[in-house]
């Protein structure tokens, strides 16, 4: 291959890659918005009557329907919904009468803080543990340690976060009185929710890091690095780990997305004043505009996580911009 074609190839892999990712993100976002819009129309029966109850006077129902614009043709409503979103309007809560945007603005930070902190804990714990286990159990060494690690991580990963939360509350908050049971006022109150959210994903990630790293360690270029007599630190961290990053990061992104959703349950256990406790209340009270808005925020958060993961992958592993064409 001549140098000029190479040059062109190199410059051009990023652009189509970025374009593909942008298209995928925007398409998914559009599907999400449309799904959120349709949600209210897919509900069997009249959502207003559902939310106000069967005993509600007909004129109130009619007024509420008109206020929500439910009497307009579907496409008109869709247009209003989309243009509202562009202005940052998510509608008005049926229950409290406050704008949903305000509600989200109040509640979102607590949720984001919880998810991000838990994710950091996951990465900070799982990556070193996974690397260490890979190094220790390489080539079939320490079979017992490997078995203990694998089985405990399988068990930990199989326990859903809200059950972990209940266990943690019962043990560390109620029995030992080390941390507050609920709320997010004291610094100590962060410990249990973050742990409940982080333990399962950390177990999964540590396992993946170990398996991926072991696979990478079997590669020829690791042998080359060893033939250069690089110190073990460089062989593992500079040569092996970045090549295990693709799978780890792909999975890490999925986990972060799952953790965003996991906050819903954990927030409810700890009465955490975030979006998760709000959405459950809104679903129970049939406050559809609020549910719509919060679902949209959660969904967009997940899509954003995926986009960031893809871009970071492209930066770390130049081949991933070419692959999967």
């Amino acid at each position: 291959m001549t140098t000029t074609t190479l040059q062109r190839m190199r410059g051009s892999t990023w652009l189509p890659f970025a374009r593909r990712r942008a298209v995928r993100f925007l398409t998914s976002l559009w599907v999400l918005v449309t799904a959120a819009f349709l949600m209210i129309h897919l509900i069997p029966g009249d959502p207003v009557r559902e939310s106000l109850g069967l005993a509600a006077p007909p004129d109130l129902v009619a007024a509420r329907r008109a206020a929500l614009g439910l009497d307009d043709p579907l496409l008109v409503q869709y247009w209003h919904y989309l243009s509202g979103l562009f202005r940052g309007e998510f509608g008005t809560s049926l229950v409290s009468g406050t704008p949903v945007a305000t509600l989200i603005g109040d509640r979102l930070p607590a949720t984001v803080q919880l998810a991000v902190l838990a994710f950091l804990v996951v990465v900070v714990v799982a990556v070193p543990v996974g690397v260490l286990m890979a190094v220790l159990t390489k080539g079939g060494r320490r079979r017992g340690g490997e078995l203990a690690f694998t089985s405990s991580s399988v068990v930990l990963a199989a326990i859903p976060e809200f059950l972990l939360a209940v266990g943690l509350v019962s043990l560390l908050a109620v029995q030992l009185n080390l941390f507050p049971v609920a709320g997010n006022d004291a610094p100590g109150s962060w410990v249990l929710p973050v742990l409940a959210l982080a333990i399962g994903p950390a177990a999964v990630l540590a396992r993946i890091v170990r398996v991926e790293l072991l696979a990478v360690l079997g590669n020829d270029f690791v042998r080359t690095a060893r033939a250069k007599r690089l110190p073990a630190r460089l062989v593992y961290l500079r040569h092996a780990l970045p090549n295990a990053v693709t799978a780890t990061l792909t999975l890490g992104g999925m986990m972060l997305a799952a953790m965003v959703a996991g906050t819903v349950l954990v927030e409810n256990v700890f009465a955490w004043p975030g979006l998760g406790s709000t959405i459950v209340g809104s679903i129970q009270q049939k406050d559809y505009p609020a549910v719509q808005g919060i679902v949209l925020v959660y969904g967009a958060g997940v899509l954003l996580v995926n986009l960031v993961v893809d871009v970071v992958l492209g930066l770390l592993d130049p081949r991933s911009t070419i692959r999967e064409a």
Partner: protein
Amino acid sequence: MRPTTGRLAVLRSPVGASSAVLLVVLVALAVFAPILWGDRAAAIDTDSLQQGPSADHLLGTDQLGRDIFYRVLVATRLTIGLALLATVIGVVTGLVLGSIPSVLPRWAARIVTSAVNIAVAFPGLLLALFFAVIFGTGTIGAVLAIAFAITPSFARLTQTLTASVSGRDFIAAARVCGVGRFRLLTRHVLPNIAEPLVINATLAAGSALTAFAGLSFLGIGVQAPSYDWGRLLGEGLNRIYITPAPALGPAVAVVLAGLAFNLFGEAAASVHRNQQRGKATAPHEPVEDRSEGGLLTVRNLHVTFPGGIRPVRGVSFTVHNGEMIGVVGESGSGKSLTALAVSRLIEHPGRVTADRLEFNGKPVQKTQDRELGTQLAMVFQDPTTSFNPTRRIGGQLAEVSEVHQGLRRRAALGKAVDRLEAVRIPEPERRAKQYPHEFSGGMRQRAMIAMGLMGEPQLVIADEPTTALDVTVQREVLKLLARIRKDRDAAVLLISHDITVVAQTCDRVLVMYAGRIVEELPTDELFTAARHPYTTALLKAVPDLDTDRDAPLAVIPGRPPEPGEIRQGCPFAPRCPLADDQCRTQEPELETFGENHRVACWKSESELAGVR
């Protein structure tokens, strides 16, 4: 060892067996608990409201005085039943969505596929919440919500698996035979992906169970007066300050049931993957040896692997300064492992032992990394995989000097550019900034050699350096090695399966067979004085200008023994035309045969006219 087959193999692993027992208990509870204890679980006792655990009530009582322990047992039926129902609906929908693209017109298939791809990006719980809003809070809503939350990932799995089998020969054959697309799917594709699908359905049942518990716990799943574990858990959590048992009881139930499904699925998956490993042994007794050494001195080198596998068995040779030595043999003869062993690159569980293994007069095991890293250069067979794909070529060269020679990053990179130029890579400065995948194969191999030149190599070990390259590029690489040897007075150990390559470039040849050196002789005597029947057979297998082109090409009949199956006698005896009873019972030692010539053959003194 043969892999265990059959559907019951999963029960033979401890994890599989115990999770299977757990599943049976769960099913039994689901069937019988409501019949046996339904009344006790529903009995309202206003005298003992909200009590803690006691002998009468193992987990205490709820706000109506009902026994929580029995309620947990009775709730097994609803919990498991709903989880399985949701799983079945989800899996079936996923199967349909995942396999339907192969029978749809292309545009419709694309829509289905991309819809699945978008949906799969969202976590199941989020999907479940979304559907819970649409279907309404309550049992049916929750079942559908969880079912549709499972659907996308199952559809994706089906798609991937379908794609992986549809490339196979039997599918192509069926297609050629005119089998319709639908029939192809149901008769040929689905049966072949059934096993991973079933395993994943088991795992999905586990997550459906915990997700259902989550929804009920949040109050948007099962509604009173019905109750499942999630609901009991939610009720118990309100009282966790006072007594933990009412919350922990159902929590433990959910965890156990979830684990039972997950572990059973994992165990089945690992049976499916069929991993097998051997056991370790390593026999060897050292012998005293103080013969004269060279730059690289190898005496009685053994490499052993677990399971009594000995791919290298007592190899001895010496490499002197500035010498170019070839090692030839078929694949599996132990030549590459010998190269790795002398350069201290054999990893656990492989074991290296030797009476002497010295580089530059010092035991290799005790030589410092700095010395080996700068004085011993390695060139590997496949330059494509031997470079780290995520780092630039220049950096990969430079780190040798950074680590071993204390050069700063910039100076090391400068040196890397200089060395790339030395191996005649055009525009070395620009090339140094590129990634390995931007290099051609031959250029990568030259860059690999340049990497060895970052230090002051006294020995270059090149393990099949030309095998992965085009014939035209091969010669360049060989020339480059020869030039390095001349310019720097470095010794080269060239490993190749190609005796002609070795004959053209080397001073001496080591012929390896079944983990041993069977002959060592100067290259210029190779065609005239080779004594071992294996060497002569290798030479005869090379066609030249005099080869009768109407006759079939000469081959060596049979195949070399695997390292695990070497028995008594000369390993070449089964393929040797001269073999007699002695050859078949006793292994010959490598014995000096005139000057610079060693042969391990009982027949080396006999007339070899019949073979030549």
